[in-house]
């Protein structure tokens, strides 16, 4: 049997396989390194990094829902300096691509992080313009074509690494946002971020989350994510990283067939710390079973 080729190239960056982690579900990899060999991952995408440290939202920050979860972490992070001095050196020990997820409250915030990272050993930047959990956490940018295009253009001016714009699913037409990011010069797109939702504790008569609303993720959202990834992949020429509810290799294959060049595993990490490795194994098994030599053969094959 021939070796199966799982390599994919996104905006000129080659990954060993099409699997990364969804930002915010894997920290900077440190804690999961006890469970998964990080060398196996196509890329590690970090938790959102801002210029100064962010405290995040009050607790409770999460709630479980049917086949999903709500989170309102509020982009807590130690700030870009700690990230560069502690987390990045840790990640560089491994043979995997490093994607830093960037968040900000204002355009300047984003640009300062992007500029600070420009000479660091970071392979790609993912710009989170879609976090629904902090008032100025980017979703304002992500729900309007003009501001999507504008912030993309600005970020591209400062970025030395390829730029992935991460899109919000809380919009009427995701294709418009994708086109705006492409027009602004984005090198790739990732989607979906979480769908805004809520849960009520009927005995306490109040919202479960301190923040009232949170972002829905997990298998519950997979059909919506898959639809949006397919719409976007049919609309733009730049590559798409698909995510939303991927638990298994089969789920990942669905996203690849829908047109994603790579996928990210998020909430699944909480259910199973080995999820990323199992998704990679599952993709390989599927390709072997179906006699497919190169994963690129199936990308977008339903279209």
């Amino acid at each position: 049997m021939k070796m199966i080729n799982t390599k994919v190239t996104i905006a000129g960056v080659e990954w060993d396989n099409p699997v990364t982690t969804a930002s915010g579900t894997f920290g900077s990899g440190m804690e999961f390194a006890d469970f998964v060999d990080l060398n196996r991952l196509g890329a590690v995408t970090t938790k959102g990094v801002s210029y100064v440290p962010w405290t995040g939202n009050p607790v409770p920050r999460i709630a479980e829902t049917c086949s999903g979860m709500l989170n309102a972490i509020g982009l807590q992070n130690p700030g870009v300096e700690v990230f560069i001095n502690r987390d990045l050196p840790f990640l560089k020990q491994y043979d995997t691509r490093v994607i830093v997820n960037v968040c900000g409250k204002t355009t300047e915030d984003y640009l300062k992080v992007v500029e600070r990272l420009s000479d660091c050993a970071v392979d790609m930047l993912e710009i989170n313009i879609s976090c629904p959990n902090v008032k100025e956490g980017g979703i304002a940018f992500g729900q309007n074509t003009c501001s999507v295009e504008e912030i993309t253009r600005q970020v591209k001016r400062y970025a030395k690494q390829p730029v992935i714009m991460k899109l919000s699913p809380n919009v009427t037409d995701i294709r418009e946002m994708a086109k705006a990011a492409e027009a602004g010069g984005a090198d790739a797109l990732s989607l979906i971020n979480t769908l805004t939702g809520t849960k009520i504790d009927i005995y306490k008569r109040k919202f479960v989350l301190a923040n009232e609303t949170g972002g829905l993720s997990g298998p519950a959202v997979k059909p919506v994510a898959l639809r949006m990834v397919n719409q976007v992949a049919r609309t733009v020429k730049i590559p798409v990283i698909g995510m939303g509810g991927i638990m298994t290799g089969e789920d990942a294959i669905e996203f690849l067939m829908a047109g994603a060049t790579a996928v990210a595993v998020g909430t699944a990490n909480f259910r199973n710390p080995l999820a990323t490795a199992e998704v990679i194994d599952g993709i390989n098994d599927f390709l072997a079973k179906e006699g497919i030599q190169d994963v690129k053969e199936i990308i977008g094959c339903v279209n």
Partner: protein
Amino acid sequence: MAVQKRARITSQVQLAPGIFSMWLEEAEIAKKASPGQFLSLYCNSEDRLLPRPISICEIKEDRTSLRLVYRVAGKGTEEFSKLKEGDMIQVMGPLGNGFPMEKKKAILIGGGIGIPPMLELAKSLDCEKSIVLGYRDKNTFLDKEFLPYGQVYLSTEDGSLGVKGNVIDAVRQYAVQGAVIYACGPTPMLRGVKAYALEHNITAWMSLEERMACGIGACLACVCKTKEKDHHTNVDNTRICKEGPVFKAEAVEL
């Protein structure tokens, strides 16, 4: 280092209405475990994604098995309570820091479903111990199992057993003495313990609770506010699953 395993349930019994005791055979976790640490338990139902954190109540002497005592609080714990001897359950552990073992005259305080982790602690602490257990009513559990390890005092909210009131009422009424406090229980109780410890200028270690997603320090779901900036988060909160669940009373805000 924590591991994820499929563990066999070797016994499951009901101790009191809604309170269950389960023994899991899992040597690798049992070998590494210490009192005050916890496990993440995963549901078999695929629609319930998040792990349920449950404290270690006992570690078998030969380090092959662990005991968990838990209350049916919702759908996940209800599912656990229906598992039978021989069934398998996905678990991760041991997680968290556990209690530090000080060699001082100790007061162990457990309230409600905060009582279980005190049992392994009582067995492990090599010092004089007073044990104060608070219940809602006369449906107590585990209290007799503490008897070999120290003087046991009870409080009940309705006064049906021991002192009527909470654990601090019992500590005061029986004038329980000690140089260090270990406590686990509902937040209002822990607030009382913290105030009492401050008042008497004694160290208090307390085990906190918060909703968890990863259980291993990666997602920042489970933080509690801290007095000082935390070394890891670089802000004034800390991860209960990783730096805790046991904290020095004065270090955290309740």
